[in-house]
């Protein structure tokens, strides 16, 4: 360096070319990158749906949502849908039940579709969902009679209301199929016509709703119509959803691991499923992922200390992963090179390799999760 050669004659800083001055910047707004199947959608208690890219564990964007909202996606992430209830004066004024439609590229609000009602409860997948092709939206309502509000998502209007007495929750399948669960422990098929009106056509009793109910967040592959209704004790009831739906042979998560099946006996401490959203299903590999803890009955919301990997074809446990912090919700991407997602009660997202359980990436401060969604597009 010249200044070095000149030694003490000139200080080095005086001769070195000064670094260029940084250029000024304009403010702008980003748009969404092309969606990929490794995106995870996380709804939180405080409101908002955070979109996280599992390949980087970074936030891509946030969709506005009121607390206790529902959330659904159009195929290929072209649009996002939020079902929510807002009062004109926050906690007072006029109640407004809305299905808010957001553009997938800009995340700008396209339209608020006014709804005739909706159940206000801590967000769960079967409170608001769409048909597999994304053309119909279904909002669960209970005020206090139980009903399904069907929305034409292309025309952006409410088609009609179908009452489902003594049943609740919505599990759509295929283009127009809808199943629901009933207070007496049956699955009911609901036929809803093009006008949004319909009725229950079939009822298949298969569980004890009082002693060993099935989890609301039981996983369903809407496209294939394959559902796995899983009870608090860990009995897996495979159902092929259709008209009518057909029940397959039940099996036990504990037996898949070589243990005795769990019972409702308070004395029996064993591995049990639990959490906010304890299950995820990967249709391609037919693998089920379950958050498991050791405990007694009636701890169905307790977070999982382990994640179990189960083969739903052979009913065998494939792997058990110990989690860094207890898992509250689990998801798996639906592509052929899937990522596993675990949200913890203390606000961590763990992105894991579903084959090895290795923690690939993580993100903290995600907030208390209610909803969790992935999309195969």
């Amino acid at each position, binding site marked *: 360096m010249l200044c070095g050669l000149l030694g003490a004659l000139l200080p080095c800083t005086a001769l070195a070319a000064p670094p260029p001055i940084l250029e000024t910047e304009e403010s702008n707004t980003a748009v969404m990158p092309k969606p990929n199947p490794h995106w995870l959608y996380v709804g939180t208690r405080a409101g908002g749906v955070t979109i996280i890219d599992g390949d980087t564990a970074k936030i891509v964007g946030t969709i506005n949502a009121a607390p*206790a909202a529902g959330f659904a996606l159009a195929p290929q992430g072209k649009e996002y849908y939020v079902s929510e*209830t807002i*009062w004109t004066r*926050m*906690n*007072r004024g006029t*109640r407004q039940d809305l299905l808010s439609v957001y553009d997938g590229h800009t995340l700008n609000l396209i339209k608020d579709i006014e709804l005739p009602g909706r*159940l*206000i*409860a*801590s967000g*769960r997948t*079967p*409170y608001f969902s769409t048909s597999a092709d994304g053309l119909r939206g279904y909002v*669960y309502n*209970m*005020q*206090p*009679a*139980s009903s399904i509000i069907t929305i034409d998502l292309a025309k952006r209007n409410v088609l009609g209301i179908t*009452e489902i*007495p*003594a*049943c*609740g*929750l919505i599990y759509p399948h295929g283009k127009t199929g809808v199943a*629901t*669960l*009933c*207070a007496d422990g049956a699955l009911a098929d609901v036929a809803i016509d093009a006008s949004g009106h319909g009725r229950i056509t079939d009822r298949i009793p298969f569980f004890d*709703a*009082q*002693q060993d*109910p*099935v*989890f*609301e967040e039981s996983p369903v592959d809407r496209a294939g119509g394959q559902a796995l209704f899983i009870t608090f004790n860990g009995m897996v009831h495979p159902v092929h959803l259709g008209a009518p739906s057909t029940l397959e042979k039940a099996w036990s998560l504990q037996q898949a691991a070589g243990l005795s099946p769990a019972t409702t*006996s*308070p*004395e029996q401490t064993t591995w049990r499923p639990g959490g906010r959203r304890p299950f995820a299903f990967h249709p391609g590999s037919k693998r089920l992922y379950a958050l498991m803890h050791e*405990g*007694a*009955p*009636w*701890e*169905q*919301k307790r977070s999982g200390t382990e994640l179990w990997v189960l083969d739903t074809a052979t009913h065998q446990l494939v792997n058990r992963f110990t989690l860094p912090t207890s898992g509250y919700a689990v998801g798996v991407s639906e592509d052929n090179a899937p990522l596993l997602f675990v949200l913890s009660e203390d606000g961590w997202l763990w992105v894991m390799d579903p084959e090895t359980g290795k923690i690939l990436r993580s993100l903290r401060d995600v907030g208390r999760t209610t909803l969790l969604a992935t999309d195969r597009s």
Partner: protein
Amino acid sequence: MFDGRLFEGWSEKLTRRLASGTSRRGVLSRVGLALAAAPVFPLLPVDRSRAHAATTPRLTEFQKNAQVTDDTRCNYWRYCAIDGSLCSCCGGGVHSCPPGTQPSLTSWVGTCYNPADKRSYLIAYRDCCGTSSCRQCHCDNTDGALPTYRPQANNEIIWCFGTSSMAYHCSTAALVGVAE
């Protein structure tokens, strides 16, 4: 351990309400789930299956740890199926809403075991609604808590039906009868 007098006092209200008019009956027949919108007490099925004989209780984890002295802690016996902030920590009480809030007209229900008298009681969990969330003493107990297809035992619904505002503030646990 069924106490006819007290329980009848409670079911009497129920019967009076059931007889209070055709229009309400019309609603009830549609509901099907024994869930009513407006009256002071919720319409509930008696939970027979989870009652325990006083002499040979088989206790759940919650029941084993339950106490009867401090209603500002999550393990107070009546809170066996509560999900939310305890109104006892928010300026209310175990069956009183804090000032500025209203008790919901419907509720979810639990069957909780009282270790002091070894009886099980029906507990109506009414949300107090109308003002900013209290956020104190959050509990999430799930003894006998059921999914939304059994709404009368569901503690995730914002049970503010029938109040002038559905803003959730806290939850109470009123004793409404003895479980059979």
